[in-house]
């Protein structure tokens, strides 16, 4: 019979980072805890290249671990901030992806298959318009919008992670939301 073991008690993220400065191997569990969430964020923005950017994000995080400020951020927002900075070097690729998705849509086979046909068409149109809207946004505005929408970061977390004033976060987000809403013509009837 297998021995029953108690669930492991996890060391807090910020403690691991602090310890990893003297014992680098202490950083490894952070990857296991957060890789999925960071990859999901990257994949929604850049597609298949997310695999490589995930590795790059954690390498950058590891190299910058000494600069981590636990008083400002939890680890996950900090990682999303690094991922966002990594993405900036691929902003053209990201834009191309949105434009391609706007042209062809991106429905997976079987996705929304249970929805009525009209709803499916509406959803597809909405997805195309969203992609076009994202492609048209300024990269800095898009960063803020997607950190809110896909990483669920607060204004304060975005301000800290992007190192910009919180007022700038608000203005960028307002502008991005306004432009996105304006681009969603398929929702006109709902307005």
């Amino acid at each position: 019979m297998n021995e029953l073991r108690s669930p492991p008690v996890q060391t807090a993220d910020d403690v691991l980072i602090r310890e990893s400065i003297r014992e680098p191997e202490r950083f490894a569990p952070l990857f296991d805890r957060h890789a999925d969430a960071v990859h999901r964020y990257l994949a929604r923005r850049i597609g298949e290249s997310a695999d490589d950017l995930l590795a790059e994000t954690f390498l950058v995080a590891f190299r910058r671990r000494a600069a981590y400020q636990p008083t400002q951020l939890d680890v996950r927002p900090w990682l999303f901030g690094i991922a966002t900075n990594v993405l900036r070097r691929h902003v053209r690729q990201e834009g191309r992806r949105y434009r391609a998705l706007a042209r062809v849509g991106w429905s997976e086979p079987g996705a929304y298959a249970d929805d009525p046909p009209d709803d499916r068409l509406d959803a597809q149109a909405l997805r195309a318009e969203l992609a076009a809207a994202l492609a048209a946004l300024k990269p800095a505005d898009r960063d803020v919008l997607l950190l809110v929408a896909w990483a669920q970061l607060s204004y304060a977390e975005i301000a800290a992670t992007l190192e910009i004033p919180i007022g700038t976060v608000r203005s960028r987000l307002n502008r991005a939301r306004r432009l996105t809403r304006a681009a969603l013509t398929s929702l006109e009837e709902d307005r």
Partner: protein
Amino acid sequence: MNEIKILETYGPDGPSLSDEARQAARSRLLAEITAVTAYADRPALPVTRRVASGLLRLPPLVRMALAGAAVTAMAVLAVTVLPQPPEATQGPPVAGGEEPPPVLPSTGSIKLVAATALEFPYALPLLGEPSFTSGPADVIAVYKSADPVNDVLLWPEANPDESYFPTRDISVDGRPGHISFYHDDTSDMASLTWERRPGEWVTIVGNGRYGSEEAVLQLARQVVDQPQRVPFQIAIGLVPDGWELRGFKMDGAIVSYRDPAPPHLSLAVQWKPTPDWRPDSDVDGFEAGQDVTVDGRHARLVRTRETWMLTTTLPDGSGFTLQVPRSFTPDQVIAVAESVRRGDS
């Protein structure tokens, strides 16, 4: 529904994190962690005689990690020409820094020869069929479990004396070996290297429920001789004389060879279900492009600052992109492209 909710629900989605990509990214991180650890001034580590005698030499676990790093690097074909081998971890690279320009050898010295098929000598039949991954020197059989935590890796060991993690000498049915462990909050790993026959060393790495001494010893006794061809989705038939397999990824959908001599130039081919007919202007470092013919099929040959990139179709309608150093002549690029075949993966 506001814009944020709409984005959450209807915004673009992307591929989920595959086990291979997770392993590769984790391996790159682990390689960096271990390299930093190895170069740090940490005399208090509880090292064994073996470790003390070769502190800066890298262990199986590290080489496994480096293999992942090298293979991951291949996914970005835009940086195939490397000024130094990716495994030469000589300190943390600058985040976001530009790669230094490669030093290109003079042209005319490249002789193309037939590439040899790759075989893997062992199997663990009780664990089912493996997939394969690779690094600069090793081909690694990966026995995946339903839960990636419990993966098992197996490879012929070319450098049994290398070690960094604390190891302990151990006997496997009377044969010499050594074992090391890595544990953290979320994973257990055990690495066993032993001399299976005189002069023939093998390494097994067990993760999760296989991450114990008892488990890897049991696995070691199950290893059988079973040479098997490593299946690639795409294969290159001609490579420069003296070049060696650098690695492959995604069951051989990406395959790369390199010159073992500095500056370690390399070439890579990536198979795709549909050819990647991206506009020339989207190719990094684009300088010029021309239409050419490969095995009677249309192909696009693009010259960039550092490489040639050739994209074409295969008879089954799929396609590939080949990237080689600029030191090749256009005729040599086409000759290599004409030797590319769909594999047997």
